[in-house]
């Protein structure tokens, strides 16, 4: 399985699909970093991200810093169990990153913004 980033319905949404590790970090970093400079509120849908390693977490933390330095925020949505496990082991939630663990509404993520 590989990794890809899928555009969401707005510039502030990206969907991460596959496994984010050292092998896919370069691709991921380029687009997440660019996007985190373009918007103030970035939502990353992690419901189809099946694995993340420390190089992936590092990309998320950089985006978090880029956004919060400008008064914005990063929201990580619907992490899968293995990804949430890494977040827990690193105490990510304690850093101020918003992790929305509510189950994803069915229909493939096109729900607007309730």
């Amino acid at each position, binding site marked *: 399985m590989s990794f890809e980033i899928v555009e969401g319905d707005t510039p502030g949404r990206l969907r991460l699909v596959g496994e984010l*590790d050292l092998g896919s970090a370069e691709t991921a970093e380029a687009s997440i970093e660019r996007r985190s400079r373009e918007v103030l509120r970035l939502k990353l849908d992690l419901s189809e991200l099946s694995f993340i390693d*420390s190089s992936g977490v590092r990309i998320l933390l950089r985006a978090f810093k880029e956004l919060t330095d400008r008064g914005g925020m990063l929201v990580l949505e619907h992490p899968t169990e293995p990804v949430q496990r890494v977040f827990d082991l*690193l105490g990510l939630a304690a850093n101020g990153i918003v992790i929305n663990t509510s189950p994803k509404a069915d229909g493939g993520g096109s729900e607007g913004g309730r």
Partner: protein
Amino acid sequence: MIEEQRFPAEPDQLVHVRNFITRRATADSFSANLMDLLIAVSEACANAILHSGTREMVVRWTPEGDTVQITVEDQGVFRPNISVPELDGIGHRGIQLMLASMDEVAIRQGTRERPGTTVKLVKRKIRQPA
């Protein structure tokens, strides 16, 4: 069953390392530990790829009763990665993740005179919920 596999020390090999561990863990009923095993082995191999200068990594799976020992061996020189907060902001979390996910972590460091770093990871079996 003890099994070892060799992998080129390239970032795109990490997914194959994890596939190997997934296969062994499933066969030897360590499935309940799988998430933690994948996290730790992936970090150990990523460190070898990034920091040791090795060309190859050997991953060995050794189940012993209720525990499994996984070793990652390279032929490189161990360079402890020191994070530079000003550049990085967050540091390297690989070793932290290994420690948090495993019951035991030991690193035998390869030196210039005697290259070859071995990372030993030990995990006790979690009983599968019935």
